[in-house]
Each structure stands twice: as C-alpha cells, then as structure tokens.
C-alpha cells in the first residue's frame, strides 16, 4: 500500500475524536457558553461507553451510554454556569477534574481494577461492514471504525444546520447578544442549555470512539488532552465550522505524522514525535490571527 494513502487514513482516524469534540465545543461556544470542559465530557463518554458495552454486551448500547454521559457532564456545566451563575471557565475546570476523578473511582469500584478496564466488544469496523460476505481483497478499510464516517457525516450535518436552519441562526444569535435574542422573543437559557447538551453528546461520542471505536477498553485519563486540543481547534478555526474542520484535520495530520514517523524513524526518541501535534498547535495559535472574532457575547450571561 502506498505510504501516502496510509497517512491519509491515519489522519482521518486521529481526527475523528477531535472532530466530534471540536464540533461539540463549537455548538456550545457559538451559543455563547464557554466550553473548556470538553476533556471531561470526552472522558465521561469514554468510560460510560465501556461500562455500557460491558453491562449490555452491545457496543452500540455502549455508544449510547457514552453519549448520555457526555450530555450529563455538559448539563452539569450548563446548569452551573447558566442557572447558578458560576464562572464559566471555573465550572469547566471543575467538570474536567470531576470527570478524571469520577472515572478513576468508578473504574476501581465497578471493575475492581486500577488503570485499565477489562476488554469489551468494540464497534464494528468498515471492513466488516463492506465485505461482510467476502474477505477484503486488499485490506483498504482495515482498522477504520464505523464511527469515522459517522463523525464526518455529523460534522457536515452540524455545518449545514448552523448555516441553513432556523435553529442554527437562533443559536448563533444567543452567542451574539443574549439581550437582543431575548428581545426578539427567544428563550436564551433554553437554547444555550440545549446547545450545551448537543455539544456534550458529540464530545461524549468522541470519548466513546477512543474506548470502543479505536481500542476496546478504558484507560485512565485516556483522552490525553484531546479535549483541550479540540478547544484549540475551535479557536484556531475562528469559531467558523469550515475553519474548525480544517483545524481538526491539521491536528489530526500532525498526530498521524508523528505516529507514522516514530514507527519509521526509530533512531529518534518516540517522545519527540509525540509532542509534534502540540508543538504545531502552539506555533499556529501563536502566529495565526484571523480576522473573524469570537462570538460577541461569549461567556456573557444576560
């Protein structure tokens, strides 16, 4: 197989959890609610997916569990920030810390293990679906989870919704000026809360991809900062869906390249390549300044 094709596939794989989380964060932030809690939502999603798959035996139900866990984590953040008036960044950090502690605790209490959960059934791969009856001739789609095309389709769906639907327009309006949105007769709290929940669902799904799409087990703190990278993608994409999409692909590519290079270039320490996506993120954020501004009322409650 051509190395470039391999790199592209790897990029898509690496981009999938970021894509889901970043679009979740994008929806939330466009509605005006700061969302630094993507990391925590992903972690909850990853753990709940394993729990669901383990308890029911079905990875699809596991995915549902993951989505619900993401929504719950997001609802906590939204309630604290929108209803109780907590600082949105502090509330986000609290959700992240809570998620890290809670998943570790439950891992130990439910499975009786430390660090790594038992293996469960993972979601099907493209290969199995496409070549159900005949064995794959070339292994083209080997190792690509069914969640990868689903994630890209969802991202396109979110883009279309934001651009063409009434719901998308109203969501953006709440992020531009909650006062004006209220004067136009919108229920700002409801729209923001729903946006946060939808965002949490996507982020939870991104987490589930890590545990039951990519691997088939939960590892403590397995998100490894991907939630923060997703936030960076939202900022780098200047809160525009197409921009965020490009940023995610860029980060995915850097991640893929680092893995690809570390396999081929064993003379160099692997840690050097592991840092590549983060270094790239830092460099681009430092030197790139787009014209578009963040949502005008980001972080402002009426």
């Amino acid at each position, binding site marked *: 197989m051509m190395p470039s094709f391999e790199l592209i596939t790897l990029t898509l794989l690496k981009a999938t959890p970021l894509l889901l989380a970043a679009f979740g964060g994008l929806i939330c932030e466009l509605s005006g609610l700061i969302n630094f809690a993507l990391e925590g939502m992903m972690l909850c999603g990853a753990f709940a997916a394993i729990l669901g798959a383990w308890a029911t035996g079905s990875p699809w139900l596991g995915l549902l569990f993951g989505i619900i866990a993401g929504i719950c984590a997001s609802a906590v953040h939204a309630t604290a920030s929108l209803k109780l008036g907590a600082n949105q960044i502090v509330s986000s950090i609290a959700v992240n810390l809570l998620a890290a502690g809670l998943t570790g605790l439950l891992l130990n209490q439910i499975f009786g293990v430390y660090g790594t959960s038992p293996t469960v059934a993972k979601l099907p791969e493209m290969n199995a679906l496409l070549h159900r009856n005949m064995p794959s001739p070339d292994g083209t789609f080997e190792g690509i989870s069914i969640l990868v095309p689903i994630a890209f389709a969802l991202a396109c769906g979110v883009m279309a919704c934001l651009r*063409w*639907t*009434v*719901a998308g*327009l*109203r969501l*953006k*309006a709440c992020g*531009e*000026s909650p*006062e*004006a*949105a*209220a*004067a*136009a*007769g*919108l*229920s700002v709290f409801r729209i923001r809360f729903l946006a946060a929940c939808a965002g949490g669902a996507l982020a939870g799904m991104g987490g589930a991809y890590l545990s039951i799409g990519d691997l088939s087990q939960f590892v403590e703190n397995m998100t490894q900062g991907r939630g923060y990278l997703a936030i960076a993608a939202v900022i780098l994409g200047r809160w525009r869906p197409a921009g965020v999409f490009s940023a995610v692909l860029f980060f995915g590519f850097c991640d893929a390249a680092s893995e690809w290079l570390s396999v081929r270039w064993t003379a160099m320490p692997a840690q050097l390549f592991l840092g590549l996506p983060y270094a790239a993120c830092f460099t681009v954020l430092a030197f790139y300044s787009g014209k*578009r*501004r963040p*949502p*005008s009322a980001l972080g402002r409650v009426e």
Partner: protein
Amino acid sequence: MAISGAPVVEFRNISKRFGSFHANRNINLCVDQGEIHAISGENGAGKTTLMNMLFGRVMPDAGSVLLRGKPLRMRNPRDAIRAGIGMVPQELLYFPQLSVLENIILGSEPSRAGIIGRRAAEKEVLCLRDAFGFQIDPSLPAGELPFAARRQVELMRMLYRRAEILILDEPTSSLGPGEVEKFLDVLRSFRAGGRTILFISHRLDEVFAVADKITVLRRGSIVRTLESKKTSKSEIARLMVGGDEISCPNAVTEDRNRPAAASEPPPLLEVEGLCVESAGAEPLIKCISFSIAVGEIFGLAGVVGNGQRLLARALSGREKASGGKMTFGGADITRLGIDARLRAGISRLSENPAEEALLPDRPLWENFLLGRQRESKFQKSGIIRKGEAVQFASDLISENGIAAQSPLDPPASLSGGNRQKAALARLFAGSPKLAILEQPSRGLDLHASAGMRDKIFELSRQGTAVIVFSYDLDELLSLCDRIAVIYRGRLMGTIERSLFSRDLLGRWMVGISS
C-alpha cells in the same frame, strides 16, 4: 382613524420603583386601536420604563397592563411579541456578527421544515428597505454598519414582524430630515392599517405631525393626556417641565450670536487633504480640507452614513489617517494617538456613548475620572483619591442635572438621555481646546439640549473650537458659525452663517453641487 370600543392597551395603577427612585407612580393610561399616541416628558420622566413594562422587559411593582380589556401576564418580551407587541428600544440591541438580513428575520424566520427560506426573506427585506429608501446591504454584518444604519435595521425588524402594537423609543434620533418624513409616512400608513403606535420623542415637530394624542409624563406621573389638535407645542413644553413657563425660554429660541471679533481669530485646527481608509461599510474619507478658528463652532451636516463617524474618529485619533496632514495650534498631530491628542486638548463625544464613552457597569465617579486620572488632584503616587473623585462626580451630577441617585450608581442604571448628559458633562468639564461632538443632543429633552447649547456657547466664548456632527439641520443652523456638508466622504462645500441657506445645504446633502 378607526376607533373601536375598548382601548387596545390600558395601564391601570402602574407603579415601579428602582431602589428608592420612583420611575413610575400610579399610571393610568388608555390607548385606542389605530391611534398614534405620543409619550412626552423630560429625560428620566419614566417614559422608557413605562414602555418596557408593556413589552415585558420590566415587571411593574403594582398595577396591571390590559390588552383589549384582558389583563396581560407577561414574564418576558417573548410573551409580548406573542401578544403582537413590538418595541424598538432607544439603546439598540443587535447581533454584531450576524448579517443585516439575519438580524431582521430572527425570531420569525420564514422556513420550511426548519430550513430558512432565505430567498423569501431577502425579497421581503429588500421590499421594506426600498419602501424607506434606506441604503443598506442586507448581507453585511450588522456590526460593520454605521451607528445610524443600525437603527434603520431595527425599524425594519419591527415592520418585518408586523407587530400590531408598536412601541418606538426615540426612533428618529439618528435619521436625516428626508428620512424622518418617509418614516412618519410609514407610521401614518400603519395607522391607516389599524395598527396602534406608542411613540416616544423629544422632537415636538414630529409629535405634532403624526400623533393623535399626546401624554405628558413628569417625574414618573402622568400630567395630562391631550389631543394633539387641541393643544400647542408651547403647552406641551410647559407641562413637561412642570412650571408655568419653560424654565430657560431664552436658550430654546436663542440662536448663535457671535460677537464680531476685532481681528480674524487665529486658526486652531487645520486639516489638509485628509484621507482615511474605510472601516466597515462607510465610504472612505477622501481628501478633506478645512480649518477651524479659535472659538468657532463648525457644523458638519450630511445624511446618515456619508463618512461622519469615520471623520470624527480620525480627528480624535481613533482612526489612522492614510494621507494628508492635521495641524493643531501649529503642531503636526497627524500621527498622534488618542491619548496625546486628549492631552493636547482634543476631546470627542462619540455618536454612541454607550459603546465608546462610558463604562456602563462602573460607577459614575469612575466614569468621570477617566481621562483625568493622572491629575494630581485625583491621585497621589498612583493611588486614586476616591474622596476627591466622588466629590468631583457629585458636583458634575448636580451641575448638569443628571438624574442619578449617587455618584456610585453606574451609567447602566440611568435613562438614555441622562447617560448622554453624563458623557457631555465629562467632556465639558475637561475644558477642551477642541470639542468634537457627534449628535450631541441625541436623547436630550428640550431643557437639557438648551443647557447643552448654552454650554457650547460658553465654551466658544472662552476660546474652545467646537465641531458639531448632526443629522438635524435645524440644530446646526441655530448653533454654528459655519456649516460644511459631507457627502460620500468628501466635503461638498462650506457656508458662512450670514449666507446660510437651507436650500443649498439640502442640495449638497444629496450630492448636487452648484
């Protein structure tokens, strides 16, 4: 005029207090179907509060609002909109990064299965725009429009929603004369269609041109409701201030009467070939030259959106000049920033003080301190002397008749007119050498705008040069020594007081040079 039985809107024993301040006291008012009902009163008389209660933005402490005889229970504007009530507030609420089109249709989007019918929306919005003769590109982000055009967007939004009962709070304050006429025509056509309009305005000319009834509010209570045919401007003005006569009759009628100087006063500000790159939708400033003498009052007339804001910003140092030269008192100031120009004595009042002059949520004393925090009176080795600053603020509040409870109140708690007074008071207190005033009488009542004019005349006598940007030609004609007209970023011409001609200025304003 269609009159049916029950009043369409009835306020019954409405009272509202903010802290210890009685915004509305025991208001009883009936508004009939298909009537244009003007609400008049001085700044802080409680007009906006009353209207906010009809729109569900403020809850009354006591009393009730009835719609067609039934009590209205409103918790928020959504309930009001559902009941067919629309409001254009004085302080604009809009979505800066959404397009004009999206701003207008939001809340009642034409849609099928959740997808916005963009083409249908565009058609209707363009229709509305052309009915008014506004020149707004609906695809531009609203935040890039000049301030006045944003109000036009707001008006279009209201008309788009086809509200049955319209509340308009100072709707014409940034429209030019021609636009006001068109706007009043639209109001008349609304009335003919059976809609009811509640109209707050300080411009009695407009009130008398369209209103059927006029209700005068004073200090939170209704003084009287009169039929406009059976009253006069002077009676309304008298009721507003509560005395037997207008408290400063001279100032209201007095025109600029500049003592003839023995010799030509020296030029203070000279602008040569000033060019500014465009910020947003406004035209570029192209090669503008003029000079202003010490103590002169220079008016800049023009239709909304012809580069006034950009020019004002360039003069104050807020915007960089891309070409040309500005000399102030002999020194080249072209490259100086706002701070250096402030220290040289150039102060500007922005067209939108809420955005560019006042910190809405900080106390008034901090707002008044801004710009003079370095003065030794107000600080000692970097520590603010709060006592001095608060004292200074209370002096300004009482001198300028700002309706604030204390200098610790933030501007956000004041009415629109009082915020304007506060911004003006701060500027005048700094005794600038050059004052650049954009729409200085915006939101001011008769009394306050008379005070503002007196202040301008007084400053001019002390040698301050004043540049007044206004869309109101009458204001400029009575205030200025010279008037220039700006059209699409160029000066059409300048005219001396002795040669003032409404006709010529009007032609310049639409771009006919002769």
